[in-house]
């Protein structure tokens, strides 16, 4: 079947009001779901799944993909306005988005988040269509040593988000790695820092740690000084993103999109590390690197491009190999199976109409995302106008509900409160929170892949250098560390 035939076959299944309405509705649900801290895009997709059972396969899957894409963008709205990421993927957006909101440029930050998200979405969808088979086969050749080398490289991101002191960033990262060791040991199943509590055996809930670290310290800081915000601009502001802003950030958006595509095509990495890596690269390359972390619009663009670049690319291993790239695609694979479809190489032969129908739907989703996102920014304007001393108790209550809803566990609420005090202490001691979070995400992956590699090789460390992929990641890690060391040596001289 030629490409034109495949496209026509796809068009025949997708060209219906129901399919496009489902996609549009999905994006609306996703944006709202992503914008509610604690609900997250994952939960929004999971909640929508039962509604797809009675729909046509293509309609149901487009509904879920709409929720996914809308959710990833929606997470940036509370991240910018109230410093609480709606989804873990939006964590990096806080770094510059919230300082912009504090300066009265929330509208500009949200506008750039939308433009960067839509651009990255288009790039990611095109990558999915053009490179699905090739990239998936590349990702399939990743084993534990390759993952270990990749994650080790990803940890060098910490240097980019450490702020004024690399040592404090390193301390923050080590604390994150230490916290990630809580739970049952992967190989032997023995207890590590669980103190005999069954709630601790699965490790600490990521959402509870995330919200505790970023949202609760703001509430505690308000208790310390309830009038600190007075006189500070926090409204959406009259500034809007301009084409000049977009053009200035374009390189970072494209770079972030490509980082998202690459990391998204590798199962298990996810959108949050991609956003941080994109942010770090943008900071490293930008002439305005001093402004990063203080409200630089290019930082918002890079973060959003990084996390939205993942959205289409995670479907590459899903569609080409039947391997879910992250939790959300794992839920979406369930929708395929419910409708009697088995994602994988055979689907490109047996259900080519569905595959190309999805491709067409995904391209249209970028346009829908732009429309829905523009309306959502205006709709969420009221959040900026709410008095902060009413907003903060509301955020606290929302955090309690949101964190509880993840696992239906009150223990997670306690973890969130505890992490809130840790985050507040870190804030007062000028320790950056971002390295903590990155290390907390990557720590278990790093350790598990290291130990799996050792188990595979009978504890022979040479397995960590077993092929070109590992050589590549070790080389870029060393180059990055050398570059960081050179920068540190230059600063005292300057």
């Amino acid at each position: 079947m030629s490409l034109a035939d495949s496209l026509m076959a796809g068009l025949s299944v997708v060209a219906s009001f129901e399919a496009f309405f489902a996609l549009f509705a999905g994006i609306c649900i996703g944006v709202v779901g992503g914008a509610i801290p604690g609900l997250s895009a994952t939960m929004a997709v999971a909640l929508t799944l039962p509604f797809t059972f009675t729909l046509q396969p293509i309609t149901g899957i487009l509904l879920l993909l709409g929720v996914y894409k809308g959710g990833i963008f929606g997470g940036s709205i509370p991240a910018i306005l109230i410093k609480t990421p709606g989804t873990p993927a939006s964590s990096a957006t806080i770094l510059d988005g919230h300082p912009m909101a504090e300066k009265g440029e929330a509208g500009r930050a949200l506008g750039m988040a939308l433009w960067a998200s839509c651009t990255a979405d288009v790039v990611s969808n095109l990558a999915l269509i053009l490179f699905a088979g090739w990239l998936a086969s590349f990702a399939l050749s990743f084993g534990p040593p390759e993952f270990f080398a990749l994650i080790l490289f990803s940890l060098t991101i910490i240097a980019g988000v450490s702020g004024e002191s690399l040592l404090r960033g390193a301390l923050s990262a080590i604390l994150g790695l230490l916290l990630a060791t809580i739970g049952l040991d992967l190989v032997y199943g023995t207890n590590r820092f669980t103190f005999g509590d069954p709630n601790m055996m699965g490790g600490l809930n990521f959402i509870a740690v995330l919200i505790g670290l970023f949202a609760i310290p703001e509430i505690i800081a308000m208790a310390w000084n309830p009038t600190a915000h007075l006189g500070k601009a926090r409204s959406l502001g009259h500034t809007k993103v301009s084409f000049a802003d977009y053009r200035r950030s374009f390189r970072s958006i494209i770079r972030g999109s490509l980082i998202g595509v690459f990391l998204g095509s590798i199962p298990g990495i996810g959108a949050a590390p991609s956003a941080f890596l994109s942010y770090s690269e943008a900071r490293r390359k930008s002439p305005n690197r001093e402004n990063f972390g203080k409200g630089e619009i290019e930082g918002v663009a890079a973060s959003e491009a990084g996390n939205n670049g993942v959205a289409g690319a995670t479907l590459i291993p899903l569609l080409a190999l039947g391997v879910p790239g992250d939790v959300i695609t794992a839920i979406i694979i369930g929708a395929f199976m419910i409708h009697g479809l088995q994602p994988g190489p055979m689907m490109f032969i047996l259900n080519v109409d569905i595959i190309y129908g999805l491709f067409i739907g995904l391209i249209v989703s970028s346009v829908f995302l732009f429309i829905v996102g523009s309306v959502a920014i205006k709709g969420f304007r009221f959040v900026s106008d709410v008095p902060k001393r009413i907003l903060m108790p509301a955020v606290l209550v929302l955090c309690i509900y949101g964190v509880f809803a993840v696992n239906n566990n009150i223990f997670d609420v306690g973890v969130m409160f505890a992490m809130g005090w840790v985050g507040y202490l870190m804030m007062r001691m000028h320790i950056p929170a971002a390295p903590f979070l990155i290390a907390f995400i990557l720590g278990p992956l790093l350790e598990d892949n290291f130990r799996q590699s050792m188990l595979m090789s009978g504890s022979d460390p040479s397995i960590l250098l077993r092929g070109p992929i590992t050589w590549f990641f070790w080389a870029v890690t060393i180059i990055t560390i050398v570059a960081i060391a050179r920068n540190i040596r230059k600063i005292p001289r300057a």
Partner: protein
Amino acid sequence: MSPKAIQFRLGLGACCVALLLALVGIPGWVSSPSNVSNIVLSPTFWPYTLALMTGFVGIGLLLASRHESPDPDPTHIEGTDPKAWLRLAALAVIMMLTMFALPRLGMVWTAMIVFAVTAFLFRTRHPITALVCAVLVPLALYAFFAHVAGVAIPQGNFVRLP
């Protein structure tokens, strides 16, 4: 507090944490089977590595503190206002009581009380709005999470919602 003092305290704290982990935390709270074939596969290997790294970073912070400015940092939050400390303590108590009340009173009633108490702790200039929001926000969240998302929100032992 000066950057020098902050850096010094952090360094000292990191070294203490490293020692505590190595001498008390890991031996006491990390279980390892006796038949581990290789040290790198032991459940204690990673925590010990991290404790060592914490120690190194602590020493680095102590050494770096010598080059930091001894002048006070104007952006640093100083703890001089006793009422501020009282409010922090009150918020900590609110959080502890929340954990106690959630399974007993239920999430909705606890959230209403938490909303109202924190709004007054923050000295809100809109007390009526705060009270109205304290009732409406938890109810709206309950309606969404319980009836739309299907989450089993704790109802407590006294008044149960539909």
